[in-house]
């Protein structure tokens, strides 16, 4: 726990050090069957949710990076989403349908940090959907690998 404090402190400082404008910049836009038909989430909104860490191997990196972010189901609950399918859209217009069940069966997170470094659009950020691939053998499959959307910008619930 003593190790956690500096880490948390560091994260908070990092978040505070970014400009006020950055904190209010919209990271994720939820549409479809959500509260009011559209919910926009900023960094500040995500900061209010509970944060989680997943250490997992990925198909596009070596080793087992540690990802930090918010549970996808928490984000969807926050937006009062109700539906069976979530259509995820990335900056480069990559689109894929993800069953809502995934987020309840597994602790899937919307990661904003990899190995303590904030994800940026020049890498795979600002948001990367990360599955706990090493915790469930069923997830080591191309059908799930395709749902690891990086540069995530929008979720459409239906």
């Amino acid at each position, binding site marked *: 726990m003593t190790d956690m404090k500096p880490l948390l402190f560091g994260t908070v400082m990092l978040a505070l050090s970014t400009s006020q404008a950055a904190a209010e910049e919209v990271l994720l836009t939820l549409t479809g069957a959500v509260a009011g038909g559209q919910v926009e989430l900023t960094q500040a909104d995500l900061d209010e949710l509970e944060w989680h860490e997943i250490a997992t191997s990925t*198909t*596009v*990196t*070596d*080793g087992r990076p540690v990802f930090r972010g918010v549970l996808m189901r928490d984000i969807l609950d926050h937006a009062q989403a109700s539906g069976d399918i979530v259509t995820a859209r990335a*900056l*480069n217009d990559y689109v894929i349908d993800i069953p809502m069940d995934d987020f309840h069966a597994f602790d899937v997170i919307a990661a904003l940090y990899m190995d303590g470094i904030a994800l*940026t*659009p*020049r*890498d*795979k950020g600002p948001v990367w959907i990360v599955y706990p691939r090493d915790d469930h053998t069923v997830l*080591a*499959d*191309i059908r799930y*690998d*395709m749902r690891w959307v*990086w*540069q995530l910008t929008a979720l459409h619930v239906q």
Partner: protein
Amino acid sequence: MNRMGVHWRYAGLGALIVVCLGLLVVAAANIIRVEQQMQISATQNMTWIFGQTQIEALSLSAALSNDASSSEVLLRYDLLVSRLNLLQDGPQWRFLSEAGLADGVMGWRDGLLRLDPAEGGDPAALKAHVTALSTALRQKASQVMSREWQVQSERLDQLRKLDLLALAAIIGALISGAALAVLLVDRERRLMRARVDRLRAERLQRDLILERAASEGYRRFGDLIAHQVRTPLAVIDSAMHRLTRSGKPPTPEVIRAKADVSRQAVARLIRLTDTALLMARVDRGAVAPELACHDLDRIAATAIEELQAGRRVTLRTGNHPVIAICDPVLTSEILANLLGNALLYSPPDREIAVRPLYSDDMAMCDVCDQGSGMTPEELACAFDNFARGARHRDLPGTGLGLPLARHLARLQGGDLTLRPREGGGLIARLSLPGKVTA
């Protein structure tokens, strides 16, 4: 089969089992390896990743040409950098390196970063760099695809090899399993044949022993008949000779005496024949006792009377009648036999006692003589057919009397035993199921 052959046979069986199991293990291992490799990983999608990089390069190039907004240019720039970053990540970079396509990729990214529009990079220089980049990417795209298919084909080759190996191992296991089955069936057949042979040999041995015993019995019976029949016949012949001798005719006394001697000899012959016949009937199980409650005292008394032996035999009865569950005719035959022996083998001046009594719910009848008795050896084989005491070979007897008497006793659920009498002589004890009277 000799011992060496057996060893070889077992060694062969063991080797076959090992081969069979070993091949199955190989097959299982290969199938597991195939199963583990039957997975599509995202790194096998390099053609798509490379294509995406190309598209982002073209999009940035288009944004720069169309005088798009700076935020749009920045977005396209970020996306292109992210794709180049992705190509430089571990698995993708290894793929490119192994394909010999990695050269320059790093240079393009570094060149791009130097012209970052967010930091005031020169748009014209950026456009020229991106154009060159997209041309280079276009040239490499087909190589990436070719490399990708090659990797996929090699992987399939590997899987096919494992699969064929597993198949070969299974076929091998099938063949060795079949050989094993043939060997085991053959072994079972040999064992069965050996068992049948052994049983047949045992039966032959048993038949031989029986046949020998029968043959020995016939031989002794032949001797016996020769002896026991000859003696009375010689007596009769001698008597007839005396009566028909030339010269002075015999007196009536002599005739009567010779007639008595002849009749006794005939009686002995009849008795001998009767005993042999009864023995034969007992042997083939044709004698069925008619069991009922009878007074053993009375049967004993009748037997003594019939032998006209009242002078030498004393019947010593107790206070209560001894009731036996028996067949009176057979019991009478037994007692007559025992009394006949006692009379024959003991001196004429010694008393023979007959004692009916109860012991342990059995009705007994002891016949005690004061003759020379029997040696332990004689006692041991007294009940064998045709056994005769060595000292009494010259006395009349068949050697069937005691065995017959015991047979008859046992037929009635009883027994016959012999034991020496204290002070000399023999005690023959007939025991029969008794009925205790109140």
